[in-house]
């Protein structure tokens, strides 16, 4: 019977080609959507690489006067640090966790090899106490880095893997595009996925910037502070921090948000296009399903005489239903097979830098969905086929 199915499908290759194309196309839509979903979920399950609970972001708007801003900042940091309930304070560039600002660069070279596109962060010695990045080799910045001739950097494993391969990263010297050796790696953290829960672990470099070392201090920079507070701190501490800042700076304005709030806000904004895409592809799939359903329905009506004949020759109603499901199974498998071969090119060519497991899972998911889809679409037409009475074979058109 299976051979018979293949013979039938082969002999009807022209009409089946359309059906297979339709299945191939919907497989691709499903594959694209599942890739996105699976990779989002995959990223979601990865460790963030830092701790955002009990961390507050303090946005300070300085007044116009820039003359003694550096001293003001220094004083402010000291006061905040000394406030009861505060665990640690760090000053960062504007690309704080969950913010919409980012900085990336491919200016790093190692022995003439250019590094990947890398997220770049300014960091001081306190940052690791606030965000608790997981240092897996070497160390975070320390006071003694003041004495170093090259600017100290901490990199994440993704960056280290890309530039140094399996060699230890600590101690490596990075140069810029003119070959000037400007940076030295002092530590490696495992990950820093600060964009959102759905972001991948991009290569990242933290550059040491401290107020004491006067270099690169731009008085026009807006100071961004991250404050780790003791668990359970609330509005009282928040008001206290704002007041401290105003006291020290004589009127600078400050607002406080928790990183957890920022995380939720960012999540909403990242999820919106994902959900929109999901809805669009859902419509697409419903469309494909209706098309498939129509084609199958039409086929069965076209083949009423054949069905009557088969029943007259000894097929049972269930057997006819099974034959139609079987044909659909074979056609679906051909479409899925073609789709898998094409989809497998993505991990094989390594485009988009998505892990292979994500693609494999996405292909599996898309295949399962296609089979479910065609099974649903073929179910009712096959039942109709099974119900066609054998007597139709004697009625002449």
């Amino acid at each position, binding site marked *: *019977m299976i*051979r*018979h199915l293949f*013979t*039938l499908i082969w*002999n*009807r290759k022209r009409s089946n080609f359309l059906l297979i194309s339709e299945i191939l196309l919907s497989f691709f839509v499903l594959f694209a959507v599942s890739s996105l979903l699976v990779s989002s979920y995959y990223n979601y399950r990865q460790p963030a690489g830092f701790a955002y609970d009990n961390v507050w972001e303090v946005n300070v708007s300085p007044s116009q006067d820039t003359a003694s801003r550096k001293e003001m900042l220094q004083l402010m940091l000291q006061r905040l640090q000394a406030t009861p309930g505060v665990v640690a304070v760090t000053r960062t560039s504007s690309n704080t966790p969950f913010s919409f600002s980012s900085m990336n660069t491919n200016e790093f070279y190692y022995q003439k090899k250019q590094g990947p596109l890398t997220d770049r962060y300014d960091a001081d010695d306190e940052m690791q106490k606030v965000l608790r990045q997981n240092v897996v080799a070497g160390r975070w910045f320390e006071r003694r880095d003041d004495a170093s001739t090259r600017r100290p950097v901490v990199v994440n494993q993704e960056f280290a893997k890309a530039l140094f391969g399996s060699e230890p990263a600590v101690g490596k010297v990075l140069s810029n595009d003119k070959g000037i050796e400007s940076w030295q790696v002092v530590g490696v953290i495992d990950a820093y996925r600060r964009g959102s829960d759905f972001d991948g672990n991009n290569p990242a470099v933290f550059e040491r910037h401290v107020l004491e070392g006067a270099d690169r201090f731009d008085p026009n920079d807006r100071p961004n502070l991250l404050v780790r507070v003791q668990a359970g701190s609330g509005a009282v501490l928040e008001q206290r921090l704002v007041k401290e800042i105003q006291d020290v700076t004589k009127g600078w304005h400050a607002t406080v948000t928790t990183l957890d709030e920022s995380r939720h806000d960012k999540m909403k904004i990242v999820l919106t296009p994902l959900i929109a895409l999901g809805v669009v592809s859902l419509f697409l799939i419903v469309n494909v399903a209706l098309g498939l359903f129509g084609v199958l329905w039409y086929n069965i009506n076209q083949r009423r*005489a*054949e069905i*009557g*004949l*088969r*029943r*007259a*020759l*000894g*097929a*049972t*109603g*269930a*057997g006819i239903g099974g034959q139609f499901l079987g044909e659909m199974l074979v056609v679906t498998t051909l479409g899925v097979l073609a789709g898998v071969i094409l989809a497998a090119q993505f991990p094989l060519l390594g485009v988009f830098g998505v892990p292979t497991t994500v693609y494999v899972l996405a292909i599996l998911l898309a295949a399962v969905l296609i089979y479910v889809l065609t099974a649903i679409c073929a179910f009712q037409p096959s039942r109709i086929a099974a119900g066609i*009475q*054998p*007597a139709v*074979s*004697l*009625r*002449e*058109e």
Partner: protein
Amino acid sequence: METTLTPAPAASAPASLKTTPMLQLRDIEKVYQTDTIETVALNRVNLTINKGEFVSIMGPSGCGKSTLLSLMGLLDEPTGGVIEIDGRAVTSYSDKELARVRNHKIGFIFQSFHLINDLSVLDNVELPLLYRAGLSSKERRQRAQQALERVGLSARTRHFPSQLSGGQRQRVAIARALAGAPEIILADEPTGNLDSVMGEEIMELLLSLNRDQGTTVVMVTHDENMAHKTERLIRFFDGSQVS
């Protein structure tokens, strides 16, 4: 049920000995009910077909001949009365049992051949064997080949129906009916779509099947000449047997 296609000598008995009932219709009534009209297609038909007989059925169009054949072939159920095959009433048969009886005992030949155009001649002839358990694909091939030889088409096995003449197509349909080695062949105007020469060929084939292999044949026809070549002629008018 292992009937082969080689001539069975026991079956070529004289007509007078053909008294074992193969198919019996008792008080058969068939009413087609549609939304608005009710058509009485058959009205209290009593009929016995004996093993080895060649019976022809004549009657004006619409008198219920095809309906009668579909009931005999278990393609449809009567609204009243009982059908017996080999002395067993089929009223209580399940869909599966009916399919089995159709497959093993009955062969159909239709006016418009009803070949599947997307299957080769050989694949068409193999069809009834596909629905029979316990046959290897080699056996199926062999039987189909033999049946095609029997109708003189062994050179056309790889052709498709569209590449054959009407007479050849009907011979393929006969080979298909033969492949399952049925005890009875039900033919609904088998020569209706053919010219007289081709019709003659088909008639000869059916006659020789009946003569050489003892296959019971029931044939609906509009052709008096052909009807007179058979042992028994039944005339229908308006749903009832008139002679």
